[in-house]
């Protein structure tokens, strides 16, 4: 664990440069370039708002805000995982030729998505007053669930990026896990919509505490209970601990398998 902190600090400039590289490359050949990082979530929001205010009507006021407050962090999570699972294999050319700590690759993949997440909050902040939803002061609490989510995501990506080096099936399996996980997490619905006797199952979902923090602060204007915040960080650090332990154990052998 100490190694993780020391190496991350030592290579922070490299991680940052690789994260920016990823974003630059993603938008390189498009006319609008970097603007897509803002436009993409903005347009998605427009589509969702139209769909849920006209076609599918839920009994939830300002459903699109209800949805987006959680969909944005979820998108961050699923995109980070999708990108990062391939981060070691995808950088094989580098890994085979330069002595570089392997952890910079999944880290950079996650950081590039953190930038996207932060940018996607801008259109959300515009949409909230536009739809007449109150803009709560509790937005200032967002860095807390965000931090827990980032730690959790990094932990997961370490595990899956390492596993994918040995079995390329992992990248595909991750996609399936993500789509199942999406429906098992209260993103398009809320836990309150479910029968009481099943709710305990949801408490086993490690990401629910983070989701809860986002939705409470953006949609309800409330702060989560301390217990829930503690649970979100506990899940995050367990994921990081296990993920990095696995990654670290195998990282010296990556070069022979990529």
């Amino acid at each position: 664990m100490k190694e993780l902190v020391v190496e991350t600090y030592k290579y922070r400039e490299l991680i940052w440069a690789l994260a920016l590289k990823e974003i630059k490359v993603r938008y390189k050949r498009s006319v609008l370039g970097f603007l897509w990082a803002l436009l993409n979530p903005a347009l998605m929001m427009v589509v969702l708002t139209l769909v849920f205010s006209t076609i599918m009507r839920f009994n939830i006021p300002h459903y699109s805000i209800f949805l987006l407050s959680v969909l944005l962090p979820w998108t961050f999570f699923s995109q980070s995982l999708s990108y990062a699972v391939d981060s070691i294999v995808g950088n094989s050319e580098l890994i085979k030729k330069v002595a570089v700590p392997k952890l910079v690759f999944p880290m950079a993949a996650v950081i590039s998505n953190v930038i996207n997440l932060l940018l996607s909050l801008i259109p959300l902040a515009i949409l909230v007053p536009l739809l007449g939803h109150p803009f709560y002061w509790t937005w200032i609490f967002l860095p807390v669930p965000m931090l827990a989510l980032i730690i959790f995501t990094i932990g997961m990506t370490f595990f899956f990026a390492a596993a994918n080096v040995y079995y390329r099936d992992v990248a595909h399996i991750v996609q399936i896990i993500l789509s199942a996980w999406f429906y098992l997490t209260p993103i398009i619905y809320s836990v309150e919509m479910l029968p009481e006797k099943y709710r305990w199952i949801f408490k086993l979902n490690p990401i629910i505490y983070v989701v809860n923090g986002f939705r409470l602060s953006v949609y309800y204007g409330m702060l989560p209970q301390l217990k829930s915040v503690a649970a979100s960080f506990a899940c995050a650090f367990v994921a990081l601990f296990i993920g990095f332990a696995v990654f670290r154990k195998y990282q010296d052998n990556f070069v022979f398998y990529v």
Partner: protein
Amino acid sequence: MSNRHVAIDVQNVTQRFRIIHERPDTLRELFANFLRHDVSYHDFDAVKDVSLQVHSGQMLGLVGRNGSGKSTLLKIIAGVYKPTSGRVHLSGKVAPLIELGAGFHSELTGRENIMINGLLMGFSKKEMLEKEQRIIEFADIGEFIDSPVKQYSSGMYTRLAFSIATEVDPEILIVDEILSVGDAGFQQKSFARIQEFREAGKTILFVSHSMPMVTAHCDRAVLLESGSVVADGDPIEVAALYEALVNPPVAVS
């Protein structure tokens, strides 16, 4: 030579590769092989118990046939491979020119690649910004520095890679065969640069199949064969041994 310190210290290094015959790449293959009890492999030592000390200021030519373990040894020294056994101690930063433009991203510009390359070698952003101008000057690629490197000719690519590796001022420079790519003018410039390096007391590891180059520039040569050091010493003698290996004298009966 005795007052100079050991820059590269390789002690009893062995690199074992497990060659799995049809390594399962997917879970399906793994299960299939597992069910058939069919995971056959053999171990292969690409580098066998090699010990090597290179003093600072030395230019060592590493020669050997294809598959003799040169590249593996270089990668171990550069820290890309962690050896199966043995250890490597280096004093100072290494700039590996193992393959052309390793770490270049084709969509990024030359300037952006200079930064990423430097950071990959462990230099800081600040250090790289200071060196940037000199790197660009030596590489001599003009306005192309702000174009994506995929538009570069192979000569420009080499020049930029060589320029980065040498301008970052490493204590140890590893040059693997790449200098044969540039034109005569750049080759001269490169060897002049390498000469400066030697005079500054730096260590150079030079891999080549060209014996004239090895004998002209190196002050020591090591011949690898099947992963072991079979000769170590005067470049002219080692080059002769290498030539004998490559072109064995035809026995007249």
